[in-house]
């Protein structure tokens, strides 16, 4: 599905990602963990097509296509979804109008007719229940005046509406209390199908109590320094990132 080879990227001339290689197969859940400043969010930004990060080397192919050449909206239409760490408030644009436009753009891309108003509202209702989001939020402007938890739930709600093939969740757990965390994680689990994949980017292990990854990568200083199964997350929780830093340091000395 997604193949990243020796990816390097910089922001304002400073290299942040220093060579990442990674493959995500259909149906897999990958967790990318790492301390602050390790390049996790930059990786998410590069995959979604945010312009501020400049790719200097390497390739990213998605279903055989060169992802880096695609506009952000085309990536979304091909099934990539980014759950934002800091969802943006857009005053004056209603959630309904936003989602209707997005869903119908994607349908158009797949050669489908736009949804009728009643079908669309039905879909909104179903997906709202799925992520336990307050009904009233849908009538408000996008993220405007939402609490931190509501914003994150709203990201999962949008994911539910758009049914992506590859969801990249950037620190979706940050700023969530335990109840909201559980709701968000349940939403992700309910949306999981055998053929779609998720990349969960997180600083802490606790989200991984609910979303069980197949593979855990540790990102440190722009590189993946360790890859293992779900037990790696627990090990990190126990020992902290210092252990990794030390380990990497020793490896570099050898």
């Amino acid at each position, binding site marked *: 599905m997604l193949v990243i080879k020796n990816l390097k990227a910089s922001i304002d001339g400073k290299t942040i990602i220093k060579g990442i290689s990674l493959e995500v197969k259909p149906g897999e859940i990958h967790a990318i963990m790492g301390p602050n400043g390790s390049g996790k969010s930059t990786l998410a930004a590069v995959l*979604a*097509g*945010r*312009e501020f990060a400049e790719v200097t080397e390497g390739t990213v192919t998605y279903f055989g296509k060169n992802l880096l050449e695609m*506009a*952000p*909206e085309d*990536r*979304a*239409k091909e099934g990539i*979804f*980014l759950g*934002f760490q800091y*969802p*943006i408030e*857009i*005053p*004056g*644009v209603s959630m309904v*109008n*936003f989602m209707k*436009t*997005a869903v119908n*753009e*994607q349908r158009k*891309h797949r050669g489908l007719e736009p949804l009728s108003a009643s079908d669309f509202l039905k879909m909104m209702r179903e997906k709202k229940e799925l992520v336990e989001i307050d009904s009233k939020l849908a009538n408000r*402007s*996008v993220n405007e005046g939402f609490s931190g938890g509501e914003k994150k739930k709203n990201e999962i709600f*949008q994911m539910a509406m*758009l049914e992506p093939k590859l969801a990249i969740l950037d620190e979706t757990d940050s700023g969530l209390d335990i109840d909201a965390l559980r709701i968000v994680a349940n939403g992700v689990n309910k949306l999981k199908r055998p053929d779609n994949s998720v990349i969960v980017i997180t600083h802490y292990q606790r989200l991984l109590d609910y979303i069980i990854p197949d593979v855990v990568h540790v990102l440190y200083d722009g590189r993946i320094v360790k890859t293992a199964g779900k037990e790696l997350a627990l090990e990190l929780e126990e020992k902290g990132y210092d252990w990794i830093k030390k380990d990497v340091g020793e490896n570099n000395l050898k």
Partner: protein
Amino acid sequence: MNNQSERSERYYNLYKENIKRIAENSSPYINSFREEAIEKFGQLGIPTRENETYRYTNLDTFFNHEFKSYFMPVASDFARAEEFRCDVTDLDAHGIVLLNGFYPTITDKLRQLPGGIWIGSLNEASKKFGEKIEKHYAKYAGSDSDGLVHLNTAMASDGVFIYVPEGVVLKKPVQVINLVQSEEDIFNQHRSLIVVEKNAEITLIICDHTLSPTKFLTNAVTEVYVGENSHFDIIRVQNEHNNAGKITHTFIHQERNSNASSNNITLHGGLVRNSTHHFLGGEGAESYSYGLYLADKFQHVDNYVNVEHAYPNCTSNQLFKGVLDDMATGAFNGRIYVHKDAQGTMAYQKNNNILLTDDAKMDTKPQLEIYADDVKCSHGATVGQLDDDALFYLQSRGINKREARLMLMFGFAHEVIQNIKVEALRERMDNLVMQRLRGELSRCASCMVKCG
């Protein structure tokens, strides 16, 4: 300066040539203000950019133009105005059509609505309701610096009169459609007076349209009296063509515990200048002043707002937003004046602008004069581009860049539109704004006029 006095002299001569005909149609009371007003106009002249409140607006292209003689209506002129139908389908309103500043029906110049409300021609009303007119006419519109207000008082031919008696609430809005239509380039001035007595409520919608592509200049004055505990909303929708110059002056005088709002929505027009004056003349009064302007090509839109807090514990709020494309220019000047005794004043002002090109230009200037000490005041102005983060957020959901930009602009504009309480009009405005932003002509779809 020579040019200036020459120009003012032209309008002075226009007055002399036409005053006899204008006065014949008017009442002695309204006529009694003309002589003094033209003298004041003579002293002040047409505003230039040396006038602080016109600093960013150049009136030359319209006021230097030779307009044909002052328009007086004849019966045949009204045929087209009679045909005009507004296409805001769900808008249930009491309608009035003004043609080139005149009340174009011969038989039904003054109508009575339920509750003893009168709507109709100011000329007609001034003959019938001398007392009501004398109490309010020319009492609120005045200016030490703007000659155009005086030019209007000197020459205004007709306009709308609305009278809402004490305790009467009119649920349906009154809609005034101002049409300009002529084979020749014309200059027209109309004058309106709205009197809302105590504990009453009314909404007024004013739609400015052009019916022919000739060059027009309008200089309109509206005076509004809002009595104690009363509620008054005025929404002005300006949808004219690039050859149209529109200058409006609205003076809203508010009594104790009254609530008034003004919303100027400029969708289209060559040169537009709206000045809106809110006088909070009694304790506990609330005023809201909104404006939205969408301009492109060489259009220019200027909003001048003057809020005067003369009594304690009043609240005022200004929100003006604009999107400027191509070489369009805009100006906003918001003045808040708090008198010494107006303790407990709350006054807020916000002006946000989006420039879509490097050539578009916006001048914005807050002007706060506060002489009381217990006051809450804030003001803020921004001039910028669309928010990149918001744009990416929409794109990341599969919405293409062009559509995402439109959605952001629409959302930006909607913050002003959402303050319109008449639902059918609010929806229609959202619709027109979207069409306008898409670059489709936003004139009403079923209108037979090809505005331009």
